[in-house]
């Protein structure tokens, strides 16, 4: 990682932009805020470029900085979170054939989770990280990560199943 930006930095941005942007996008649910946050993460990477020991280290660092900034931003903005997931209303109609609708609905439900569980779900299902890796990244016990995951999954599953029409045979 001794090579100096901007060429190597440009390549790194292109390689990881979807990951960083998606963490921010799924967490904040605001495309322009997500781009701004992702930009700040990469600018910080540029400032710490010489500290990167390997590509693996850079990947870990980017995920960690993106996660921290998401939490910070959410705390500052309170993310217009008026209702908790438990209180969130189901949609009036359900369109099983229209997968994008389900996708959007799940995204909306995710946005109603608390900050840490939301981030854990994103890292688990967007990034495919194991609970131990998430625990390492967020500096918390693995058991906490697992319990957040179980609880969040149960809540999301219940909300989605309540919204879906009952099978009629």
């Amino acid at each position, binding site marked *: 990682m001794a090579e100096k*930006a*901007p060429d190597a*930095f*440009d390549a790194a*941005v*292109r390689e990881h*932009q*979807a*990951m960083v*942007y*998606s963490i921010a*996008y*799924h967490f904040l649910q605001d495309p322009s805020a*997500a*781009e701004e946050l*992702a*930009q700040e993460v*990469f*600018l910080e990477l*540029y400032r710490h470029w010489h500290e990167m020991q390997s590509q693996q280290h850079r990947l870990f660092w980017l995920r960690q900085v993106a996660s921290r900034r998401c939490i910070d931003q959410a705390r500052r903005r309170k993310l217009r979170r008026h209702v908790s997931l438990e209180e969130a209303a189901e949609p009036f109609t359900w369109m099983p054939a229209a*997968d994008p609708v*389900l*996708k*959007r609905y*799940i*995204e909306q439900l*995710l946005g109603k989770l608390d900050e840490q569980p939301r981030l854990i*779900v*994103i890292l688990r*299902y*967007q990034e*495919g990280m194991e609970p131990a890796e998430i625990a390492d990244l967020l500096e918390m016990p693995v058991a906490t990560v697992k319990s957040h995951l179980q609880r969040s*999954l149960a809540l*999301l*599953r219940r909300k*989605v199943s309540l919204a879906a029409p009952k099978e009629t045979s």
Partner: protein
Amino acid sequence: MMDFEDQLRRALERKEPSPDFAARVVARATRPRRWMRWFNPRVWASAGMAASLLVGALGLEMERRQRARQQGEVARAQLIQAMQITSTQLDKIQKKVQGALR
């Protein structure tokens, strides 16, 4: 029916930012920061040249004023001397006139 965790994975698929995202990030990262612009050698060379010109002009002006003051002092001294000579001559003439009148 699709497994719920698979649905979650699909809902959380990675998305790409706007097409010019990387270019904007690189441009911002490589743009010199405001305070760094002060370390530009050209800025410092220009500032140094301007300061030299200013100091030079001030020096010339001070020298001109000094010379004018010295010339003024010389002229004043000469005027005082001329007045003293005139006064002495007038005294002599006055004494001669008084002697003639007696």
